[in-house]
C-alpha cells in the first residue's frame, strides 16, 4: 500500500514539474497564468493524498482555502491584463508585427 501511495505522489510531483516547465518557457503571459492554475490544482491533490495517508480530516479547510485562493488569483490576473495592451515581450511583439505586415 505504501508503494501505491508513492506512485500517486510521484505522478502529482511530475505534473508539478511539467507546470514549472511551462511556467519558465511559456511564450505568452496567458500560458504562465495557466500553468500557475495547474500548479495550484496539483497542490490541492497533494494535500488530499497527504490527508489520506495520515488518516486525518484536519486539512479539508486547507483544501477549501486553496481553491478560493487559486480562483481569486486567476480573476485578479485577468482584471489586470484587461487594462494592459502589451501581453507579449517587446522583441516578440515586434517580430510578430513585422511578420503580419509582411504577410499582408
Amino acid at each position, binding site marked *: 500500500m505504501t508503494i501505491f501511495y508513492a506512485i500517486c505522489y510521484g505522478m502529482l510531483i511530475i505534473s508539478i514539474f*511539467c507546470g514549472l516547465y511551462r511556467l519558465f518557457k511559456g511564450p505568452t503571459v496567458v500560458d504562465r497564468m495557466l500553468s500557475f*492554475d495547474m500548479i495550484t*490544482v496539483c497542490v490541492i491533490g497533494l494535500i488530499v493524498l497527504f490527508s489520506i495517508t495520515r488518516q486525518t480530516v484536519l486539512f479539508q479547510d486547507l483544501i477549501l482555502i486553496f481553491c478560493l485562493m487559486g480562483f481569486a488569483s*486567476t480573476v485578479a490576473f485577468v482584471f489586470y491584463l484587461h487594462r494592459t495592451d502589451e501581453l507579449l515581450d517587446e522583441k516578440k511583439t515586434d517580430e510578430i508585427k513585422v511578420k503580419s505586415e509582411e504577410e499582408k
Partner: protein
Amino acid sequence: MNFYDILSSIFIFAGCVFILAGSIGVVRLTDALARSHALTKSMTLGIILLQMGMGVGLYEEISGLKIILAILFLLVTIPLAGHLFVMVVYRKLVKNNAVIIQSTKKVD
C-alpha cells in the same frame, strides 16, 4: 483491507492519472487555447476523483459535507478560470494575429 479501501484506491489512482494526462497536455500542445482545453477538463475530473477517494477512504460521515462543498466549488471555479483564460487570449492575442503565427512557428 476491505471493500472501501479498494474503492478509494481505484478513485485515487484514476484521479492521479487524469491529472498527469492534463499536465502532459499542457506541456506538449501547441498554443494557449489548446493548453487551456487540456488543463480545464482533465484537471476538473482528476481533482473530483481524488476527493471522492478521500471521502470514501476516511470513514467520516460529517466531513463528507465539506468534501461535497469542495467538489461543488471546484466544479464551478476551474471551468470558469478556463473561460477567463480563453477570453483573454481571444480579446488580446487572436485579434492581433499572434497566436496563429506562434503555433505555425512551433510546428515547423
